[in-house]
C-alpha cells in the first residue's frame, strides 16, 4: 500500500494536471479550448513555478500540439497534451500518425460536443469519432479515475508503444469538484519507470523513421526483409489486440500500490444476479448506478456495466458479463449517424456468436450537455421491459431521449 496519500477536493481538470505532474512528463504542448483550458493553465503554472521540470511549448493549433508531442516522443521525451471537441478533430491526422509511429503519447480528451451548431458542453462524440485511429481509449467515471488513469496510461503506453487517450466528461467532471486521493510522488516513481523510447535518434547511428513504405515487404541494404505498409498496420492491430493483458496487469499493480484496483476492462455493479443490465460509459455510469438503485427498490434485478476501456474493446469479457442477462439497455452520449450509438454496436458485436440471448435496447442521451437524470434512465429501462413483455424484440434504430 502507498505510504502517503492525501485527499484533495479537485475538479477533473486539476486532477488531470496533478496526474501529469506526478508522471514527470517532460514535454507538454497544448492549445486551449473549453472545457480543457484549465488543464493547460495549471500545467503551465507548474512549469513556470518549477514544480514540474518540463518544457511547455505554446503552439498555434491542436494539430501542431500533437505534432510537437509526436516529435518530442520520438527523441525520447515523455509527453502530454489535452484537448476537446474541435481541437481533437483538428488533431485527427496526427492521431493516426502517433499511433502508426508507435509513440506512447498520452492525451486527455475532455469530452465535448462538436459543431455545428456551436456547443461547448458535454457529450462523447469527439473521442468516439477518433476510435479508429489506433489509440487506446480509457473513460473515467469520476475525478479519482482521471488522475489514476493518466498515471496508468503512461505505463500502458510505454509498455506496448501504443498511445493512450484518457477521456472524461466536460463540465460534469472537468468543472465539478470532489474528493480525490492524490498519490505521493515517491509512490508514483516506484510505479512508473522512466520512458524508454524505441526510436533512438543518434547522429552516430542515423535512422530514417516512418519513411515512405510501399505496399509489399522489401529487402533492405543489409539483406533483411522489412515490413511493407500492411505488416506495420497488422502490428498495430496486434498490439491493441494483446493490450488487454497489459492494461489489466498495470491496473492490478496500481491497485496493489495505491489501493484502487483497475484490474478489469469495465466496472461491474451488481451483475451477479442481474437479468437486466444498464451499459454506460464515463460519468453516466455513475448516474446509472443511481438508476439501478431505484429499479432494485422496485423489484427489478438490475446491474450496471460501466465501460472503462473502449479501445481495445473487451469483447470476450463483455460477453461473459452479460451471459445471464435477458435485457441490455445501452445508453450512448454519441451517435454513429445512420446506425446507432457506438457502444451499442460494440456490445452487439461482442455478443455475436456467444449464445447470449439478451434483447438489446439503445438510447441516445445527453448530447450537447443535455442533463441525463437517473429517473430518465429508469424510465428508459421500464419502457424497454414493457416492450420486452409485449414481445417487441427488435428495434432497428435507437431511441432518443429528447423533445422531438
Amino acid at each position, binding site marked *: 500500500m502507498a505510504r502517503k496519500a492525501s485527499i484533495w477536493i479537485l475538479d477533473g481538470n486539476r486532477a488531470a494536471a496533478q496526474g501529469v505532474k506526478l508522471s514527470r512528463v517532460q514535454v507538454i504542448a497544448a492549445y486551449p479550448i473549453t472545457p480543457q483550458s484549465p488543464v493547460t493553465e495549471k500545467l503551465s503554472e507548474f512549469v513556470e513555478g518549477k514544480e514540474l521540470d518540463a518544457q511547455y511549448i505554446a503552439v498555434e493549433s491542436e494539430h501542431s500540439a500533437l505534432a510537437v508531442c509526436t516529435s518530442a516522443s520520438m527523441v525520447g521525451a515523455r509527453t502530454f497534451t489535452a484537448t476537446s471537441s474541435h481541437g481533437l478533430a483538428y488533431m485527427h491526422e496526427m492521431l493516426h500518425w502517433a499511433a502508426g509511429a*508507435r509513440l506512447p503519447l498520452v492525451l486527455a480528451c475532455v469530452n465535448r460536443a462538436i459543431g455545428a451548431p456551436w456547443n461547448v458542453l458535454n457529450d462523447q462524440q469527439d473521442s468516439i469519432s477518433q476510435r479508429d485511429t489506433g489509440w487506446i481509449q480509457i473513460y473515467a467515471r469520476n475525478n479519482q479515475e482521471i488522475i489514476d488513469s493518466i498515471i496508468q496510461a503512461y505505463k500502458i503506453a510505454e509498455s506496448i508503444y501504443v498511445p493512450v487517450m484518457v477521456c472524461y466528461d466536460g463540465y460534469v467532471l472537468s468543472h465539478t469538484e470532489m474528493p480525490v486521493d492524490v498519490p505521493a510522488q515517491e509512490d508514483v516513481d516506484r510505479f512508473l519507470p522512466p520512458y524508454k523510447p*524505441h*526510436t533512438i535518434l543518434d547522429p552516430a547511428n*542515423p535512422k*530514417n523513421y516512418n519513411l515512405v513504405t510501399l505496399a509489399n515487404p522489401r529487402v*533492405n541494404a543489409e539483406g533483411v*526483409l522489412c*515490413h511493407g505498409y500492411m505488416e*506495420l498496420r497488422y*502490428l498495430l492491430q496486434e498490439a491493441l489486440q494483446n493490450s488487454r493483458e497489459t492494461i489489466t496487469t498495470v491496473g492490478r499493480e496500481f491497485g496493489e500500490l495505491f489501493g484502487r484496483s483497475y484490474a478489469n476492462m469495465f466496472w461491474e455493479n451488481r451483475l451477479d444476479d442481474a437479468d437486466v443490465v444498464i451499459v454506460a460509459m464515463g460519468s453516466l455510469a455513475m448516474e446509472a448506478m443511481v438508476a439501478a438503485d431505484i429499479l432494485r427498490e422496485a423489484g427489478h434485478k438490475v446491474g450496471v456495466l460501466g465501460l472503462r476501456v473502449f479501445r481495445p474493446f473487451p469483447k470476450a469479457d463483455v460477453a461473459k458479463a452479460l451471459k445471464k442477462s435477458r435485457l441490455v439497455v445501452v445508453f450512448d452520449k454519441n451517435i454513429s449517424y445512420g446506425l446507432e450509438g457506438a457502444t451499442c454496436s460494440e456490445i452487439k458485436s461482442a455478443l455475436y456468436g456467444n449464445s447470449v440471448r439478451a434483447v438489446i435496447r439503445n438510447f441516445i442521451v445527453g448530447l450537447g450537455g443535455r442533463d441525463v437524470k437517473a429517473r430518465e434512465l429508469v424510465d428508459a429501462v421500464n419502457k424497454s421491459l414493457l416492450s420486452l413483455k409485449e414481445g417487441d424484440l427488435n428495434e432497428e434504430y435507437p431511441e432518443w431521449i429528447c423533445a422531438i
Partner: protein
Amino acid sequence: MGTRDCRHICGESSPAVGEAGKTGEWRDSFPVIDPEKCLLVRQNKPSCFLCWLYCPDAVISKTIPIQINMEYCKGCGICAQICPAHAITMVREEGLCLDETG
C-alpha cells in the same frame, strides 16, 4: 518467411549504400568527366563540388578528382546540368540498346 525478423515496430531504415536498390540498372546514359575542364582538378583544391552536392543518389565522392559509383549512378544527368565548367557530358549507354535487339 515473414517480416517479423526485421524487429521494427514502425517504418524504419538506416542510410546505406543500395538502400533504394541497384539504381545503376536504371541508367540509359552515363556521365563522363573531362578533368581538363573540372575546376577541382584545375585548381587542385576543394572548391566547386556542385556535382557532389546535387547528385540525388549521393554516388559522387567528395574527392579530387571526383569518383562516380557506377553501380548506383542512375544516369539522371543532373551533374552534367549543374557543372559550371561543362566538364561532364552524358553519353548513351551501349550494349543492351534497341538497335541490337531490334
